[in-house]
């Protein structure tokens, strides 16, 4: 077991190293940030000065080493554009991203789990087919388009909800729904297949043989056990939501992490991009690592297999 964990941790660190290196090199391919920071018609000397100030005149390996060394110490460097620490910028936006992801997750579970159960209990009937269509729709509609249509209906036509910005509870409803629907579909699919598996198991048959009412069999015996994989997926998806919301954030002008990254890329703000991407990657890698280890603890077959 120790060996398994050590190997998994090693792989995760390797992935993070490769990710940081990839992003470090790729962002430098987008062009010279100094060109966006100087006035038009600046002299070569001005550009030279900016390079020196930002540390871009040093050899690449030294820049990379500085980035990694300070990252490990929790220092993400100064933003080229805002001239403030990247960590501060990140922490300013993080609550917004967390709020959006949390509400979107609540939506997706509230829609996904009941419809998944319903589809499993009524397998092959109308509810099942309706659920399948709903799930396919969720997976097929681009979230930004769902967002635009929501704005059209609830802001322009009905005038109920604000179309952009953050601050009040009304602001979070539409972006969260647009982001959550896609995941609702995924959660519904998993709930359905997980429920079907549990409903076919011995202990559910036993519960029925005991003469328990059907509602109790499904609600207590089956549902609780079927929920485990769904909760696991939801945990992973929460992290994913924080990191993929860029398009929804753009539609609703929601000040989250995704926007920060997007602006960073457009301004060639190297420290911002490196910081946001590596933190996001670290979150995803960590969650995957945690899932791998927990599964290995539960199921010995996983850790014995190579």
């Amino acid at each position, binding site marked *: 077991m120790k060996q398994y964990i050590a190997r998994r941790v090693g*792989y995760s660190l*390797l*992935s*993070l190293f*490769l*990710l940081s290196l*990839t*992003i470090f090199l*790729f*962002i430098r*391919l*987008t062009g010279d940030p100094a060109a966006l920071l100087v006035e038009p018609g600046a002299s070569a000397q001005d550009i030279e000065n900016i390079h020196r100030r930002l540390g871009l005149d040093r050899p690449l390996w030294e820049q990379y080493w500085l980035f990694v060394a300070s990252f490990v110490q929790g220092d993400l460097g100064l933003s080229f554009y805002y001239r403030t620490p990247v960590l501060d910028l990140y922490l300013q936006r993080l609550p917004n991203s967390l709020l959006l992801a949390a509400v979107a997750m609540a939506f997706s579970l509230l829609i996904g789990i009941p419809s998944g159960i319903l589809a*499993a*209990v*009524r*397998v*092959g*009937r*109308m509810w099942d*087919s309706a659920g399948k269509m709903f799930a*396919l*729709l969720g*997976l*097929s*509609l*681009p979230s*930004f*388009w769902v967002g*635009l*249509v929501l*704005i*059209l209906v609830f*802001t*322009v*036509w009905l005038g109920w909800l604000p*179309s952009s910005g953050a601050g009040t509870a009304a602001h979070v409803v539409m972006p969260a729904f647009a982001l959550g629907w896609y995941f609702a579909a995924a959660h519904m699919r998993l709930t359905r297949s997980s429920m*079907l598996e549990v*409903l*076919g198991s011995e202990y559910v048959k036993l519960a*029925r043989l005991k003469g328990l*009412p*059907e509602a109790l069999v499904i609600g207590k015996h089956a549902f609780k056990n079927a929920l485990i994989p769904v909760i696991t997926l939801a945990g992973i998806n929460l992290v*994913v939501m924080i*990191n*993929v919301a*860029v*398009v929804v954030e*753009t539609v609703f002008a929601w000040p989250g992490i*995704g926007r920060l*990254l*997007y602006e960073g*890329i*457009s301004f060639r703000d190297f420290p911002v*991009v490196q910081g946001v*991407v590596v933190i*996001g*990657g670290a979150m*995803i*890698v960590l969650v995957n690592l945690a899932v791998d280890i927990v599964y290995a603890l539960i199921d010995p077959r996983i850790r014995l297999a190579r």
Partner: protein
Amino acid sequence: MSTITPTIAAPAPVSLTWRRLKDFPLIPTLILLLIAFVAIFADVLAPYDPQIGSLARRFRPPFWQEGGSMEYLLGTDHVGRDVLSRLMYGARVSMIVGLAAVLVAGALGTFLGIVAGFLGGWVDQVIMRLTDTWLALPALTFAIFLAAIVGPSELNIIIILGGVYWTRYARVIRGEVLSLKEREFVNLAVVAGCSRAKIMWRHILPNVINSAIVLATLMLGVVIVTEAALSFLGVGVPPPKPAWGLMLADGKKGLMVGYWWLTVLPGVCIMLMVLSANLLGDWLRVKLDPQLRQL
């Protein structure tokens, strides 16, 4: 025992239409064929040039609405271009980008998956760690990033999407190759003196091509949505080309004053195409490859 016990073995009878839909996705196939037809013959079918408009006739609504006319069936956009013509040419962009990107991703992923699975050892390690790294970065973020490097153009988008989405193929195909290479026919090929390259090409590839096709159908939807998202963000197909995602971005200019057709219509096109591809892919998945049902 209660009478409403759900059984898995014997599904309740469903209506005939539904069963037929389940058996062969006729409507989705027809929709895809229609989109392909429009894409191919956009030159002939489109009533106007999709890139030329006139400010004198901007923001005309569709014909059934007040102020609309049969001249511009689905209305005009913020610079007076015909929406119907742009949608038709947009189908071409989506089709070309979607199919080409899926092909690039499929070729790359299948190749890497076969090589990783068959050769094993350090080659496998390198490819799989690379896959993990790719997956640690959300696909869309990655695509935006690459688009910022190489600049927006149709060809670049195809390469970017191919370069982002090969990971799924690589993972699935590698898994299949791992079990395939233990099979008798592979051992026999080794005994017969086939080179490793030849075994991979002649014996392994034909056995994983089904999975690759199923994955390709399912990926088509993902790729089209991503292309639309990139164009929407302004890093995809460059304006004034008529791409559906770009039309949505332009549509935002009329959204707050209620010019709904500029937002709803391109989205409906994307939805129809992606939904059809997904339905067809789901059906193919069940028919062609029972192993992939869990995917």
